[in-house]
């Protein structure tokens, strides 16, 4: 419910707010206005409407999180399924590769990439995907490894089905629930990572709003203009909380 309304709100954000999230209206007068009928969540240091920044920021945050998760689940599932199905040497090599990359600290890697290639939403998506598919691959590999011992896979092989078909039509459909459960929780994780990165100035760059960058804007004036940080913070908590609950629900349903 909460999640649904959050998604709808962010998708429809241009229709809901009267204010351009980046428009600076009469800076001198409208800076740091507290919440009112005019500006529900108040305004920030440039007189921008925080409500509309939270909505548009949510849009960016969700777009990043969903695309990262989509891409990393795709890669992770294919990689994990192949590794798990073939087993033996192939599995050994593929999994050591995963272990190698998993041993890189994510934040450090992102900081390095940002420093090297500059920052931008698409780069952020690429970097988070590259670090995000690894443990998904590992989880899926474990599932597939257990699954391939089941008689119906032997039946499929005994019927002469091609390997790709067995992986694509018999193994992967059987891990879909695990896949969705991981994906949902992963969206929340990525939102938090993206927020953290934007907060330290490495993620989404100003003036574009994301939940992290809006919080960052309000960081210095936390005691006087609390609304700038409180509302995006609430948005993050509500979204990630409901994602975690849903993810757990799917897992519970499965078992």
């Amino acid at each position, binding site marked *: 419910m909460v999640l649904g309304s959050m998604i709808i709100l962010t998708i429809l954000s241009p229709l809901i707010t009267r204010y351009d999230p980046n428009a600076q209206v009469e800076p001198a007068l409208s800076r740091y206005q507290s919440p009112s009928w005019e500006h529900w969540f108040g305004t920030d240091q440039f007189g921008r409407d925080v409500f509309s920044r939270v909505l548009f920021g949510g849009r960016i945050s969700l777009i990043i999180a969903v695309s990262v998760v989509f891409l990393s689940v795709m890669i992770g599932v294919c990689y994990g399924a192949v590794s798990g199905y073939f087993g033996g040497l192939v599995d050994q090599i593929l999994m050591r590769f995963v272990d190698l990359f998993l041993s890189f600290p994510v934040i450090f890697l992102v900081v390095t990439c940002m420093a090297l290639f500059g920052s931008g939403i698409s780069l952020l998506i690429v970097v988070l995907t590259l670090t995000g598919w690894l443990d998904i691959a590992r989880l899926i590999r474990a599932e597939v490894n257990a699954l391939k011992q089941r*008689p*119906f896979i032997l039946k499929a092989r005994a019927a*002469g089905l*091609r390997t790709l*078909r067995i992986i694509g039509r018999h193994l992967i459909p059987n891990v879909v629930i695990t896949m969705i459960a991981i994906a949902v929780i992963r969206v929340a994780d990525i939102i938090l990572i993206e927020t953290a990165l934007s907060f330290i100035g490495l993620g989404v760059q100003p003036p574009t709003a994301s939940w992290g960058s809006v919080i960052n804007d309000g960081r210095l004036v936390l005691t006087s203009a609390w609304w700038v940080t409180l509302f995006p913070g609430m948005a993050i908590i509500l979204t990630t909380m409901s994602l975690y609950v849903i993810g757990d629900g799917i897992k519970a349903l499965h078992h």
Partner: protein
Amino acid sequence: MKTSALLLSIKSLQTHFVKREGIVKAVVDVDLNIHQGETLGLVGESGSGKTVMALSIVKLVPRPGRIVSGTVEYKGRNITNLSEKEMSRIRGKDIGIILQDPGTALNPVMPVGEQISEVIRTHFSMKRKEAKQKTYELMRKVQLPNVEYIYKAYAHQLSGGLKQRILIAIALACRPSLLIADEPTTALDVSIQSQILSLLKDLKKEFTISLLLITHDLSIVSEMADRVAVMYAGRIVEQAAVYDLFTNPIHPYTKALLNAVPKIDFSHSERSGSIAPLEGRVPDMMNLPHGCTFHPRCPIGDESCQKDYPGKTFLDNGRYVTCFKSGV
């Protein structure tokens, strides 16, 4: 029947499982011939290597199992050294397999009809619709009711008997010339068992296929098979025409098996009702007895049986026995 062409010929096949604790010789020196149109029954206790034997034919022995030596010839062509790709063309198309336990042999998240038609589409280039029509036809052949409805059903919605019919349809989808049925009725109720058996009999006639019927149930063998091979601890100890084997078992293990089954036979009053259980248990496959593997349980064996494994004694009518003491 004996004159019909040889379809499958297994020569001194050995399948071993190499484990850390030792080597399990699951199939040892097995020779077996299956002729066109014939039913060969393979009987033996659980763990005697019947299933591994069946999987060896189509090269699907699970790791760490491996065919160590011997050949399998299908229609005169050695298939033991074929690549996985070539092998997958034979599986399902030339050799159909029905695995143990229909309960778990179907993919739980794919409609069962799809699982039949995907086999057809794998081996024949055929459009989806055409394959679906073929599948309906096949489903009617295995006497499934309501084929349109069952096509879309999932495995958990069907009873064991229906699932087994689906699996038979899968195995027969491409009209193979050999069907390997591994305990096709063990997991089913008795009434369903007889239905499935008579269905197999009918289909065998209609499709003119050979059948390798693996079971531990001697009554099924006596009803279905033309010839019988008895397996013990990975070896075939006796092979004979079904009538010869049941009327005159020679190997002491075969005799013991037949005596362990209750008979409803009122004419031979001294035999009926008396069940003689076979003493002892199947030997530890990792630690087989020396010499004849059956000697610890054998009623007629003596010290001489502990030295070497007995060779094959060939008798008439294609029969052979591996025993020193059976007096032949």
